[in-house]
């Protein structure tokens, strides 16, 4: 068992950190308040190969695995969770759905454009009436000769407004429940497809969360992704990978919050000494460091298993559940350690506090993760 990153993985970690510190850190608050989508930065990440980390080089990817991918997401999110979630939704949801379920033509057509960042991807499963119960989707796709016609609305879709293509799950057979859902690729500019309301959010404000609206949107039959009726099953497989990336998102933000709390506690003096000298503060830091380490081990284990080609439904959910909750606790303690300054926008604490909350909600709430975990451990 090896708990060290390889030299190559360390090189990647350093590189992403360098980019994040120089190109993202100075802009974090500038993007946050108005909710500015960092398009230019995302394009730069594309040039560096960070929009297609997990895809083979013959498809224009970096030819790396999930361990490298989560390392990159962690480093981006340590500085700005918004960038982390943009990359995560693009890579492990949209692009990976195409890579996993798509045929060779679809892979060749879309993955290189997505992996280079030329195209930004979105992944639409959630609907106003179908969140945790994603199988209850209403958005429909009806076959008409050589096309499919989509009608309905997807909600809370990351990158929705800025995406060049979206993978969308829609009902193709109302009578077959979760076996009646299929996935489709819809390109921007297709008639009858548009993005709707851009949400005004608590956190991760520089990331875009929008509606996708389909009104008699006609797409070619070859845009069906995977087999008809297996869209939901594929989506659940995609989420096995996606959840590892939300774990990495939480991990990065927890690490960022911890580091800023640690530094502040050494600088801030009260009663004549640094507040880190008070056991009450030092113990908070000890708990944060320990929990973050445990979260990182869970996340890296799930990633390493995925790279080894193993099924990770249980491990992904455990990593996602634990890491999200650690992130929320760490951000909370980070504000507490900052005292009043933690409540003020001059310090990163308040932003971490707002941003981390998404982790216990997106790609399955903490309750749903417990449901998945319970089902896995009780199944035999």
């Amino acid at each position: 068992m090896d708990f060290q990153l390889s030299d190559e993985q360390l090189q990647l970690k350093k590189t992403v950190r360098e980019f994040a510190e120089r190109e993202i850190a100075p802009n974090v608050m500038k993007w946050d308040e108005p909710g500015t989508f960092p398009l230019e930065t995302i394009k730069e990440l594309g040039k560096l190969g960070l929009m297609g980390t997990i895809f083979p080089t013959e498809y224009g990817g970096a030819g790396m695995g999930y361990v490298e991918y989560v390392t990159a997401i962690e480093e981006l999110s340590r500085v700005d969770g918004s960038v982390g979630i943009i990359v995560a939704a693009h890579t492990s949801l949209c692009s990976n759905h195409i890579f996993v379920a798509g045929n060779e033509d679809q892979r060749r057509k879309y993955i290189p454009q997505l992996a280079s960042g030329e195209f930004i991807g979105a992944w639409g499963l959630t609907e106003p009436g179908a969140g945790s119960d994603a199988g209850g989707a209403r958005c429909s796709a009806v076959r008409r000769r050589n096309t499919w016609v989509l009608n309905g609305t997807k909600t809370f879709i990351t990158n929705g407004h800025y995406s060049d293509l979206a993978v969308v799950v829609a009902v193709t057979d109302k009578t077959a429940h979760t076996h009646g859902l299929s996935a489709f690729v819809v390109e921007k500019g297709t008639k009858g497809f548009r993005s709707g309301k851009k949400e005004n959010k608590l956190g991760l404000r520089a990331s875009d969360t929008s509606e996708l609206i389909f009104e008699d949107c006609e797409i070619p039959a070859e845009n069906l992704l995977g087999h008809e009726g297996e869209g939901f099953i594929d989506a659940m497989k995609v989420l096995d990978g996606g959840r590892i990336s939300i774990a990495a998102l939480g991990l990065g933000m927890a690490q960022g919050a911890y580091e800023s709390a640690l530094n502040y506690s050494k600088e801030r003096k009260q009663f004549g000494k640094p507040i880190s000298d008070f056991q009450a503060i030092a113990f908070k830091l000890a708990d944060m460091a320990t929990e973050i380490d445990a979260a990182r081990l869970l996340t890296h284990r799930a990633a390493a298993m995925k790279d080894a080609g193993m099924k990770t439904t249980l491990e992904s959910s455990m990593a996602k559940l634990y890491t999200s909750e650690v992130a929320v606790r760490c951000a909370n303690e980070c504000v507490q350690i900052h005292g009043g300054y933690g409540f003020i926008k001059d310090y990163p604490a308040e932003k971490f506090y707002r941003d981390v909350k998404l982790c216990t909600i997106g790609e399955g709430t903490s309750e749903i993760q417990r449901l998945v975990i319970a089902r896995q451990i009780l199944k035999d």
Partner: protein
Amino acid sequence: MEILVCVRRVPDTSENEIQLSSAGNDIERDDLVYSVNEPDNYAVEEAIQIAANAGGNVTVVTVGSEEDEEVLRREMAMGANQGVLLSDDAFAGSDGKGIATILKALVQKGHYDLVLTGTQAEDGGAQVGGMLAALLDYPFASLVNAITVLDGGKLKISREIEGGNREMSEIDLPCVLSIQTGINEPRYVGMRGIRQVASVEIPTFGTSDLGVDPASVGTAGAKVKRTDYFMPVLGKGAEILQGSQEEIIDQLIELMKAKGGLN
């Protein structure tokens, strides 16, 4: 053009809190995060650009141990064509002249038209470039902030002079130049580059490969020895401003005004 760039791995001052070792003659080196010396990274970028425009090949070299290979790989992932590690127990404790002696041996083993170094190592004294040039009997220019390749084996170079003036010179190849930060904007390392160089073999040369006399380098050859290392004591002439960032900025402005540096 065959270009050799000398690089060095140094403690990353943005990632570490530098503390003195208990012995008091060095910094605490356990758990330090290292990275490539910043001016060296600019030198490598410049070399990559020259090679891309004028044709050629970029080699990066460092004198150090196996751990220092990391910076060679980084610079190769960025675009240098190959790396060379100069490593030998006899090299440990070299002073500036010792390092220059080791590098000279490598330069003479190969055929380099241009040798670049960073202006100075973040933990060093800006010695190696000049000494290397002198040992090789090559022309040398320091603090270079622009390079143009001319016909006929010459370069046009620019150097910033105190006060912001620029001095332009022509220099014959082969030569040694020390490069300033700001000469270009170094690119970031891409994932594909990292992957490509991950398993590339990096040749290592020691004293016998280079034909270097062990007595002339390392501790044996060093005539400059560090005797002490300390942080200036607080008091007259060394003051650390306290407070939040804003408060520190305000205090600093007040101080500068009081001393006539701002009006």
